[in-house]
């Protein structure tokens, strides 16, 4: 489980830095070539952005970067937290699972019909959809890891 966790973390981490640099250079790039407007640059930046935050999702989960309402959570003992997390992680997995199902249908449609974006440049949508799908899958795996961790944590203290 820790192995999986680290793997997912490492994977996101590499992607994260690469893509972040990617989008930054892109931002600079669009600006420098301002005088020769390139309609693909902005769109490419949008795609990079989507890939950036979706693929970074699992990593940010691992970093505990997502805010929570902690009025109750902050007062609970670590064990209570773990127990509640076991339950709510399942709900989070449900949401991500729905995203995956919907994403799969959407990817399938894009690939079969060679779906294109409605813009002047009109790039195919399948690649970015597959990237988003992958990102959500990584997020799902990370949540599974969190779920298993919480489960282990909540059981450890209960059993003598």
């Amino acid at each position, binding site marked *: 489980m820790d192995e999986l966790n680290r793997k997912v973390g490492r994977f996101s981490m590499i992607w*994260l*830095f690469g893509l*972040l640099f990617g*989008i*930054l250079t892109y*931002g*600079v790039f*669009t*600006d420098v070539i*301002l005088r020769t407007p390139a309609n693909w640059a*902005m769109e490419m*930046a*949008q*795609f990079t*952005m*989507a890939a*950036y*935050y*979706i693929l*970074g*999702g699992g*990593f*940010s*989960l691992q*970093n505990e*970067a*997502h*805010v*929570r*309402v*902690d*009025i*109750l*959570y*902050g007062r*609970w003992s670590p064990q209570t*937290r773990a127990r*509640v*997390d076991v*339950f*709510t*992680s399942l*709900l*989070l997995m*449900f*949401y*991500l699972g*729905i*995203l995956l*199902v*919907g*994403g799969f*249908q*959407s990817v399938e449609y894009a690939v079969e019909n060679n779906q294109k*974006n409605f813009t002047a440049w009109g790039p195919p*949508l399948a690649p*970015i*959809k597959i990237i*988003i799908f992958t990102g*959500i899958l990584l997020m799902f795996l990370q949540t599974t890891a969190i779920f298993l961790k919480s489960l282990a944590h909540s059981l450890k203290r209960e059993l003598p």
Partner: protein
Amino acid sequence: MSYEMIMFLMFGGMMLMLLTGQRVFGAIGFIGSVFALWLWGTGGYELGFDASIKLLNWYPLLTVPMFVFMGYMLSESGIADDLYAMVHDLTGGLRGGLAIGTILLMVLISAMNGLSVAGMAIGCSIALPEMLKRKYDKRMISGVIQAGSSLGILIPPSVVLVLYGMIARQPVGDLWLAGVFPGLLMATLFLVYIVVRCHLQPELGPILPPEERSVTWQHKMVSIAKGIPALLVMFLVIGLFLMGVTSLVESSAVGALCAVGLAAWKKRLNWPVLEKTLLQTMNISAMFMWIIMAALCFGAVFDGLGAVKAIKSIFLGDWGLTPWQVIWLMILSFILLGMFLDDTAMLVIVAPLYIPLVGELGFNLVWFGVLYTMTCQIAYMTPPFGYNLFLMRAMAPKDFTLGDIYHSIIPFALIMVAGIMILMAFPQIATWLPEQLMRK
């Protein structure tokens, strides 16, 4: 089941989920997808994923990672230290001078940054230790930093207003300009409060000892000169955008570049700094975007229910409210929701419901956007959920108790409510500047 009942269940379920302490985006997304499935069966599968494609096409959101990156880079680059030294020299001789200086510093930082996180980081790392050393009251310090940095979302550039502009279909340039005077008004109100309070209770913000006050005239000039790069950054980011030279996204990229340039100039650009900045940018952008994605899914369900019409008929038909009462009720609901919900999620979920009604009642949507942003500022500080509150707790030294931090915001939150009332009484404060500059 009636639509009102479903809406009530959705909000109730969301609140309950939020209270379990699950991550905000998970709580919102779970409720959204459950109801989508329940209401539309298998057709509801794609609702969540479609949100990610919708986000893909909202290109102004590209400004988010850029502005976050810029903010952290600026706080790492040491330019904030120069600015602080400047206001320190100028206001140190007054009662509560450092608190006044901190508010002024925050106004400057806000004008270079679109979120409040950078202001918090700068406030806690630079202003806080200085004030603590001069024996300022803890509650004064905490309140000043939280309130001051919340100006970041009101004074341009502002990411909240970018998002509002997308939802309400209002030009971002108008919105940014409209935020200028309300932002300055708010800052002035804070300053007046600090001056009066410190005059009545000098122990809250003692005057600097004489040897620190005797700063020579030349010294003051030198420290003012150090503030010039900051003005340059402001011009490059906001000025060029308003003049139409750069587009919105480009101006945020220029901002990020400027921040890197400044850091390089100050010789602070090294790998640890860059790595830390990149990590923070990743974390905050991912959190922000996932919340918007989940909120879009939630909002799409509402939209499918025809909630806009339902709200209109409740407000105007069943309750028979006057237009101003409707606005008040909306603001009140923002404040209440803002205690539990992240401001971006609130904007994505609630704003599409309110905005058509606000427009129909004949109110100016740019003005409403500023009003909304000011309400968010309160939401940033009010427990149990507030970004500035979280950051303050994470960054403040150990002897700041939770009680200190909670108490510190009370006077400032009241001042903000007063600010909102003033803006309601005189909408011109927000609408005058964009009308002057954009209607040519």
